[in-house]
């Protein structure tokens, strides 16, 4: 987190802009609100959890807390790859219902920290690549690139709740 923040500090923030940490997933660049990012860590072995959807890879020990790890590629139904040296886990804090949870997301690589001006964002179109648009907060254009800004509360909240139905678990 500290490196991300330091990088962020270099860029001048305006009143209406928010900072986003971006990461790569199957060639697309996604952004999450940097204030939600707790830390970035390398991929490590997880303990599998039975009766959960395949995108729940398992849980890890994060300084004494048991934290679930989700594979975003699987979550979005993208083809899976072998985890490589750039594969990282972005640990985020999300609100799920009334409780705050700490959850890790496996992504291909972290990319940048951008200031995104509210004026530069657009609502997502009905079709937005491979990602279900309910999880997309907005699209932003930064340095002529398109960023997909994710609503992680909804994304992770749904991901966790999904597994609750026994039907899904049995599938």
């Amino acid at each position, binding site marked *: 987190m500290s490196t991300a923040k330091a990088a962020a500090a270099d860029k001048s923030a305006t009143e209406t802009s928010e900072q986003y940490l971006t990461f790569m997933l199957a060639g697309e660049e996604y952004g999450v609100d940097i204030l939600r990012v707790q830390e970035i860590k390398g991929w490590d*072995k*997880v*303990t*599998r*959890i*039975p*009766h*959960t959807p395949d995108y729940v890879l*398992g*849980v*890890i*020990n994060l*300084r*004494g*807390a*048991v*934290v*679930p790890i989700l594979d975003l590629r699987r979550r979005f139904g993208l083809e899976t790859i072998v985890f490589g040296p750039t594969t990282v886990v972005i640990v985020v804090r999300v609100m799920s219902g009334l*409780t705050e*949870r*700490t*959850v890790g997301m496996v992504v291909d690589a972290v990319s940048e920290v951008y200031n995104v001006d509210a004026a530069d964002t657009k609502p997502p179109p009905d079709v937005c690549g491979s990602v279900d648009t309910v999880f997309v907060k907005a699209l932003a254009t930064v340095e002529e690139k398109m960023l997909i800004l994710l609503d992680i509360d909804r994304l992770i909240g749904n991901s*966790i*709740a999904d*597994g*609750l139905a*026994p039907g899904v*678990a*049995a599938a």
Partner: protein
Amino acid sequence: MTLDPEMAEIAKVFFQESREGLDVMESGLLSLDATADTENINTIFRAAHSIKGGSATFGFVEVADFTHGVETLLDQMRNGVRPVTPEAIQTLLQACDCLREMVAATEAEKPLDKDRIAALNADITHILGEPVHQAPTPGAHQGASDAGAVDNARPGIAALNQHSGWRIAFEPVADLLRVRNEPTRMFAELEGMGAFTARADVSRLPPLDELDPETCYLSWNIEIAGEIPRARLDEVFDWVDSRCRLEIVPIGDSAAAAAEPAGNAAPHPPGAASADARSAAAEAQRGPAIAAAPAQKAAGESGSIRVATEKVDNIINLVGELLITQSMLSGFADGIDPDDLDRLRQGLSQLARNTRELQESVMQIRMLPISFAFNRFPRIVHDLSRKLGKKVELKLSGEGTELDKTVLEKISDPLVHLVRNALDHGLESPDRRLAAGKQETGTIELAAFHEGGNIIIEVRDDGAGLNKPKILQKARERALIAADMDLSDEQIDNLIFMPGFSTAEQVSDVSGRGVGMDVVRRNINDLGGHVQISSKEGLGSTIRIRLPLTLAILDGQLVRVGKEVYVISLLAIVETIQVGRERVNTLAGRTEVFRLRDEYLPVIKLCDQFGVEPDSRSATDGLLVVVEADGKRAGVLVDELLAQQQVVIKSLESNFKPVSGIAGATILGDGTVALIIDVPDFIREAVKRSGAVNAHAA
């Protein structure tokens, strides 16, 4: 009544203390049944007095006034003026209940049940043998009822005096303000009692640049005119009397009182002549009774501290971490330079010992004696036996046995249920007991003790015992068991824990609605415990509850399946066996069962349940861990048994969600997470799943 936030914080303590005080009163009153010893009445009186004082301080007038009547009655009993009759005790018990509700209502800022209060007030006044009068309001505390109610609670304080006024020298210690006492608030209260003048002594006041705003440099000489009972003044100073030099003398009597040597007969203060001579004599014996003694500890005070559970949980978590670090280090020690190894090992073993000790002592904070749960029973049995017209003696033993606060809280209700059942169904009516050649008075025993790493709680009665033929008949009627099933006596007894089972001939409002024993069993199972009943016809029944010491730590057996490690609670494990091929059979081509002595148990393959790749899928290659939950047994197939160790239970839900078959997670010595198997749920899940597999067998 709204208080400012600071006062509200203190008021919270008052509410809690009041509840404790009421518990003390209640248990005291119940033991008064047998003996009317003065020490006991004193204890009850002191509890009532503290509630009165506290409520008056916070301005909870109704509570203070109501308690005042109770206190008066108790004081008369204590002085032997009033006989201790069962009726009076009953009234006082009701008053306790009423007070408890009043305290609760006041805390919740809800309206009080005025009718009930008035009715009980009338009862008390009736007992006091006085004409019914309205509950006294502050400032009008004189009159006959006060005569007995004056503060006798603390030796060293004068009994009652009524005269023209008081002179008070109040010299607080320097840190009075720091402990959040506010003299002006006290003065405001005094001012309400009568003509009030206070002169501050500023002689100790330092120059302005040396003044510490939080230090109290002042002392006061106060005169207050009017016929004010001494007790009212004491109440005002009650909160500060250990933090000040306090002299309270009747006006015009100071010289006499001050000069009066201890033990001599006291010249009565003006106006006191009409007072109860006994009190005056008592005062004389206690000496001049001028400087306030430090508050005397009430009998039965446990010397405990109040700690927020949250804080304790935090420490417990931290200690859990420490334990993990330690086992992580131990792991490292196996692979480093042999020269340093000995020293490292030594250090590590010390660390291990320290952490273990630390953990134990921290766990102790959460442990409470089971008396917290047992204390309700004298009252429950008392009330219930009256209602049912049965004679019962309740025996408690092992009240000091400690168990985890959470377990304690959750075991209380099931215990109440069991005791009620024992009283209602177990014990016979007095005439039936006599007819059966037993003593008229039945006995219910509640016992708690340690056994192994568990707490055992037993509820025993010497009643009729369970009616086995009837249970069997009922179970068959309700198709809970097969009509031709042969059951041992023990198995029959334990049928009463089946859902929807009640043999009460007559449904009373005490028990017998058929919800109950199964709920009791489920609650106990949820705590990781186990309940069993055994009974002998005509001799009584014993219900035995086995509980783990704590919910935060579990004695676990680590098992390996493929690359995964799981933890199974040792409490759930019956045994672990290797079975030969000849003892394994297949049912309907799918479900495997194996024979363990005289019963057939299903094989649950952990690998299939949890979808992991095992070393072997054959029941004969691996090990079968025989587990038991909810009275069901099954063999769980695993690849290997690893160590047995205590594990710290971590919740999966805090960051994820509940997962069926999993009770939680723990962190092993190597820092990895291992899942803890929820045995009852695991078995249920497996049964469901095998059905599902059969259904869409592909």
